[in-house]
């Protein structure tokens, strides 16, 4: 978008300052300008679409939402930036217009509309499966783009006729004012660009005593999730019983919890494991810090042991933990014991985790 503002401003200001183009143009100058603007829009949009396609191709296998509204949102942003740059270049055609427009665009899009919730400055390539682009933000972006484009088209004609044609002048002023009003009135920091998706009818499969459910778009990856759930259930045999359902991220109540298919097989196993242990954890509203620490450490021991056992690791999974990590020594010691003794220690950790408040 920053490149779009700068290049469009550079192009339109250069044409205005170039005397030969003015003399030799076979068609009215605003028409020439808009043709050039369309050409710039075409190659910038093509670049954006190629970048998006590369992002999607590179993330094949990683699920998430490559919805069509994402490129639509990005392309409308580029066209808005081009229209804005064209207007600037047309109104103030100096040799510095391109530079000022690009740097001004950079400051505008990064500082004034910097928030993740501004519909003006954002580009959405790819997001997780449980979110969708806010329809309000998309509608505002499209409205701002259409108005800015209309302003860019009409203002050129107004300046060409030096404001002599009243109808064109009125239209140019109307679209310019409407663009500014739309920018000022669009949703600000109060609303989110990405909204949690409404849970749809999931696709489920049975894994031992539990069912495993994923979003319909991930139906083809359901076997991976079932396999992970099976591994975790087997690893926890005799220690924990599995929940009735393993749900993918965003499918549970109020969109909370759930496993993810987004970040590879190790993450899938880890998040399925959390689904399993979370339902067995006990949280007390008021509890001495020491007692709470014992409860938390017991949960960490259990999770590390279960993950290592499910993935058949000989070492503990390498996560970065903050605070005291001496509990890891206990898990390593337990992993060196016989199977029945390991189950016995894990059961002890479950009891510590579920100790009464």
């Amino acid at each position: 978008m920053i490149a779009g503002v700068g290049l469009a401003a550079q192009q339109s200001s250069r044409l205005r300052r170039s005397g030969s183009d003015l003399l030799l143009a076979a068609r009215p100058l605003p028409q020439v300008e808009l043709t050039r603007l369309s050409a710039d829009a075409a190659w910038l949009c093509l670049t954006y679409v190629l970048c998006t396609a590369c992002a999607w191709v590179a993330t094949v296998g990683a699920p998430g939402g490559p919805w069509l509204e994402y490129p639509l949102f990005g392309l409308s942003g580029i066209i808005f930036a081009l229209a804005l740059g064209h207007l600037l270049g047309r109104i103030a055609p100096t040799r510095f217009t391109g530079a000022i427009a690009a740097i001004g665009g950079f400051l505008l899009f990064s500082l004034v509309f910097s928030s993740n919730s501004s519909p003006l400055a954002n580009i959405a390539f790819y997001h997780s499966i449980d979110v969708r682009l806010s329809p309000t933000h998309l509608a505002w972006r499209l409205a701002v783009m259409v108005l800015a484009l209309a302003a860019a088209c009409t203002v050129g004609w107004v300046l060409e006729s030096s404001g002599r044609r009243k109808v064109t002048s009125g239209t140019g002023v109307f679209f310019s004012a409407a663009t500014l009003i739309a920018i000022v009135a669009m949703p600000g920091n109060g609303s989110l660009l990405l909204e949690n998706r409404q849970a749809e009818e999931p696709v489920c499969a049975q894994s031992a005593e539990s069912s495993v459910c994923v979003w319909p778009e991930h139906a083809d990856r359901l076997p991976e999730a079932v396999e992970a759930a099976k591994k975790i259930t087997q690893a926890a045999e005799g220690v924990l019983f599995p929940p009735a359902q393993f749900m993918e991220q965003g499918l549970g109540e109020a969109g909370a919890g759930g496993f993810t298919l987004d970040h590879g097989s190790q993450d899938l196993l880890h998040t399925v494991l959390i689904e399993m242990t979370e339902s067995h954890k006990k949280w007390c509203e008021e509890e001495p810090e020491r007692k709470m620490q014992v409860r938390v450490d017991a949960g960490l021991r259990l999770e590390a042991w279960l993950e290592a056992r499910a993935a058949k690791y000989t070492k503990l999974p390498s996560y970065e933990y903050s605070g005291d990590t001496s509990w890891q020594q206990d898990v390593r010691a337990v992993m060196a014991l016989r199977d029945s003794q390991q189950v016995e220690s894990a059961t002890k950790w479950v009891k510590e985790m579920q100790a009464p408040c």
Partner: protein
Amino acid sequence: MRSLIFMTGCAVALTWWGGQAVLFPNVSGDKPIPATGAGFIPLLLSVGVLMSTIDHMADFSHAAALPRRHLLSLHLTAAFATAATLTCLALLLSQDAPALPLALRNLLGFTGLSALSAAALGSRLSWLLPVAQTVPAFLIGAPGARGTDAQWWEWPRAAVGNGTAWTVSTVLFGAGISLFMLRANRQS
């Protein structure tokens, strides 16, 4: 003359913004990191330096008895000295003298990038490479609050004591000006 007015305008903006830190968002999801005007405004000043070399009488200059490169080297020296002087004046007026080394280092590096851009694309597009460098450096980089963790490509946001940033700026300046002069030689 127009470039001088432009650079003076940038110096006024530098007096106003100066050493004050403004939080730039980080699109990679890290915490926003503050940047001062002393780090950013040299970008505009460097564009002014190269834009001032636009020759409206290019055909005439090609046929002139004195090769254009002689005049161009003097012109660039004077324009860069003007930009550096305006930077010093602006920061002294805004009582941000400690930010002077940072501003001068960035002026050096950005002038080099502008010259590279001008050599490749023409003086009118001398802003393209500096802006292309600024966007990732200010919006993606994670140089730490004081610029101590800056990587080599984040040189505009690196701390003043960062030797790599000074090296990169100096190399960019040397390479940019050399290529720009080489291009001027070929044209004349």
